């Protein structure tokens, strides 16, 4: 059973009546292929954590919506190597309604160029959503991080489309309570702090299985080797 009427990553709809390019479906992840990841390597961005890359089938999906669910807005540290790499580009890293102040010295210590940050703060939920969509669509951002209060599935869908349109990584940090809600996101992760770091469980992954989990070491034990080395090596690799 092949889902030939799935929506492709570029926003075109194929129907069973049309001649369908199988390779294109594979590339876009519209074709489910059991254990093997269907996403082409160029549509993935390495997370900088080997253990996480293995879990995600290669890395973060590019130009797609990612949801990180947690109890208390956790999971930003998973993205630091990616943000460090993206911040080397002349594009904005937009943060919409972050729960606290992003601590600039810590970001800089992880290789993130804070000059690329654009903070959208003190706005209503509707304005925040508008800003996130505009930023995603603009093509002027490499990543948009948002901490929305509540989202409907239709709004998630809009953000997903905007991310595709602007070739931009969209990461939403949401509450664990929303895990039961359906979502068009390409990737949904559940994040829980456990003593060596963060436990990451895949709830949904485009072109792959859900249900797997791993532990990304971000604790003090990992401070010296794990986090710093991976963050530094990936940022130097890019520049």
């Amino acid at each position, binding site marked *: 059973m092949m889902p030939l009427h799935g929506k492709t990553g570029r926003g075109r709809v194929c129907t069973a009546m049309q001649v369908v390019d199988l390779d294109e479906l594979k590339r876009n992840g519209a074709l489910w292929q059991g254990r093997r990841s269907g996403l082409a390597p160029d549509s993935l961005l390495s997370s900088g954590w080997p253990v996480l890359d293995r879990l995600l089938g290669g890395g973060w999906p590019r130009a797609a919506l990612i949801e990180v669910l947690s109890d208390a807005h956790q999971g930003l540290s998973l993205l*630091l190597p990616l943000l460090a790499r993206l911040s080397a580009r002349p594009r904005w890293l937009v943060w919409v309604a972050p729960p606290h102040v992003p*601590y600039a010295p810590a970001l800089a210590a992880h290789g993130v160029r*804070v*000059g690329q940050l*654009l903070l959208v*703060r003190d706005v209503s939920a509707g304005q925040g959503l*508008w*800003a996130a969509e505009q930023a995603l669509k603009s093509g*002027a951002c490499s990543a948009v991080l948002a901490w929305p209060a509540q989202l409907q599935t239709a709004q998630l869908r809009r953000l997903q489309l905007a991310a595709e349109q602007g070739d931009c990584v969209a990461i939403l940090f949401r509450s664990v309570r929303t895990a039961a809600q359906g979502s068009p996101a390409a990737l949904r992760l559940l994040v829980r702090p456990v*003593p060596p770091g963060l436990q990451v469980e895949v709830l949904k992954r485009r072109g792959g299985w859900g249900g797997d989990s791993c532990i990304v070491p971000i604790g003090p034990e990992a401070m010296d080797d794990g986090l710093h080395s991976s963050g530094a090596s990936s940022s130097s690799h890019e520049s």
Partner: protein
Amino acid sequence: MLWLALYFPQLPLEVFTRGRQQAGALVVVEPSAGREQVSRCNGAAQAYGIRPGLTLPAALALCAGLAVQRRDRAREQRALDEMASWAYQFSPRISFEPSLLLLEVGASLRLFGGLPRLLEMVQRELGQIGYSVQHALATTVTAAGLLARSRPGCQASTTDALREAVAALPLACLTRDPGARNLVRHIGLDSIADVLGLPRPELARRSGPQLPQLLDRLLGEAPDPRPEWRPPQHFSQTIELLGEIGQTMALLFPARRLMVALCGFLRGLGGGTQRLQWTLMHRDHPETRFGQGLLEPSRDPDHMLEVLRERVERLQLPAPVVAIGLRVDDWLAFEESNRDLLGGSGPDGPATSDRALLERLTNRLGGQCVRGLRCHADHRPEHAWQLCAPGELDTADAMPVQHGRAQPLWLLAQPRPLQVQQSVPQYGGPLRLEDLPERIEAGWWDGFDVTRDYFVARSRAGERLWVFRDRRGDGWYLHGVFM
């Protein structure tokens, strides 16, 4: 010399209607022989059978809902003056006659890529500003004005062509001088050609000195000095709206008219502006003022309109608007960038869309809500970062103080006091402190001195937190969050 005359046949009407996309039946009246007579009427009024020359009661009998405005010559002159500000981009020599604007374009034709392109641009922009126009070209200023009124589209660019073009015109077009009228009435000289055939001294004896002088000026045989017009230092124009506008988005139409006029003015000065000041006037309410900022100097009306649209969307009107004004006090020297030609591609493409996004966000949300971030060299966590203008360069002199230890990704806006039980700080249960403390002691010099021991703590739920013990007050506080 080549003079371009722009004649605005509907000016008395358009000074009232240009603020509106559509207007109801409207006539402009002026007194004639003691009675109000229709001088101009718009298309909607014509549909009722109203024509110029009707008396006002007759016009009202044809259309009960007719809007009537008395002709306002001062306002027409103001409109001409405003158009001169716009037209200064085409020529530094500008002069006026009633309902007429005269530009010397001989010197600047090549700059604008020839006459057809110049005329096309003039007509398009005047349409956008809100005036319909008839034009004519002639080698003398008097002839250009005469031809624009009587033979629109005529181009008499040589003396012979000029003589031929004006010859057939009735003498009454040229002057209302009583001496000239006598000639027409008593000896049947109807056209300008008839008069040109007469010897000048005889003509002067019969008609008085004015007519021969006028003919000499018309043909360029005598100098025709005109007062020199100078552009104003500021742009300040107002469009009065026929009636009231209650919807903010409907204001964009007259706003764009003002922007096109502004951009012509700026091109004339070789400048661009970053700050537009808008005023909305209400009937029984103090006026609403707001500013519109641009990230870099611009004179592109479409870009300005796009930015204004964002601004206007969140505007709350206290009352319907009866007039809209635009003022620009300062402008900067401005070079037209080549991104228009390249269509936004090339190396500065992404940077352009960067600024466009920033402009959209700041205009919609306000500048306080869209900020950049930078490091600041200070040991106190509260002072180790600063909000700044987005995109401000994070240069090496603002490098963070290097801590040897872990720093949290998040900082709480205010340290949050923690409860303490049996001298152990609590956060959803007792906190387990990891490592030895880091002491931060600084700030005695600016009145915000801190003496704190910072710990990395692990909560019962597994979160890594940044807490400190205030060594003066002896309380425990949560200040940051890792992960």
